[in-house]
């Protein structure tokens, strides 16, 4: 599974990493829906750390798109809420 952290780059996660990834991703989205800013930042940082620590580097010659695009690390709570709740924007 190829994950891009927006403005940072692509990482390659294994299928089994994918499950943990999904769980962490859900935490972040739930925090947005619960309107809990602190919780969101904590969950999102955990998610980013997981991707950075477990994700392998993507081969230089790979041209394909990502399966998932995460918001930029400096995303604000307001931006994230607009993204994750309601209709959101066009998914990456």
């Amino acid at each position: 599974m190829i994950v891009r952290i927006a403005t940072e780059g692509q990482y390659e996660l294994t299928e089994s990493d994918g499950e943990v990834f999904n769980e962490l991703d859900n935490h972040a989205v739930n925090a947005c829906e619960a309107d809990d800013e602190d919780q969101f930042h904590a969950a999102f940082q955990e998610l980013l750390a997981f991707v950075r620590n477990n994700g392998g580097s993507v081969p230089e010659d790979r041209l394909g798109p990502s399966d998932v695009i995460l918001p930029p690390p400096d995303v604000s709570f307001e931006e994230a809420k607009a993204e994750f709740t309601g209709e959101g924007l066009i998914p990456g």
Partner: protein
Amino acid sequence: MPGLSGRMSTVIKAKISKLLDRAEDPSETLEYSYQKQIELLQNVKKGIADVVTSKKRLQLQEQKLRDQVVKLDTQARQALAAGNEDLARTALERKNVAQTELQSLDSQVAQLEQQQEQMTASEQKLRAKIEQFRSRKEVIKAQYSAAEAQVKISEAATGVGEEMADVGLAMQRALDKTENMKARADAVQELEAAGTFEDLTQLGAGEDDIDRQLRQLSSSSEVDSELARMKAELGTGSGPAGELGAGSPDNDQGAEQQASTGGNAGQSQAS
């Protein structure tokens, strides 16, 4: 699963997918995609140059704020030496606001510097990918059937498009940030310009809107302690504030002379 598409990335992605839909002949799509990528790469380069320009403007503003801090400090000292504590306080309040703004500007410019480095690295990576796309398209044209080629092209072009959109997003965020910083620094400078201390005698007549705004912005405890420190330096510190204004010019001069000889003026006067 949610994903993020900023303004830039949405626009660029739309452009890429549109151009993929257009051509029926895959080799035509390939050429067109490549041309478009080269074109967009120029935009990215230009965008990064814009970020650099905005950053330089902010650095100029920083310098102006630094000058302002020095100027206001001098004016506060002059006002205090002339026995006008109210004016000194106003100058210090303005200095306090300028200083606070300067600190936040400093750290944000440092952040911007980091972003700029990252963007430059991304732009190089993007260029390498476009170059790869160029060589890959020759292979695709030579080796695949039209239907297979369409799939390969689509995948590669979407990938390059995503990479491009990502640099675009970083660029957009950096530019937004510089705009915010610039607007704030401008506001502080305007406050100062609206109540310039060019002529010291013009001030102290009363409190205007600007003074009230400044009072709200600046931390009064910091201003108080700085005022006290300045008074001690000038040797006018130990008497109550009210006595300052009452002193005749001669007395003030005397106090200053005593201060310059190293004694505590307030005590000398009292004894």
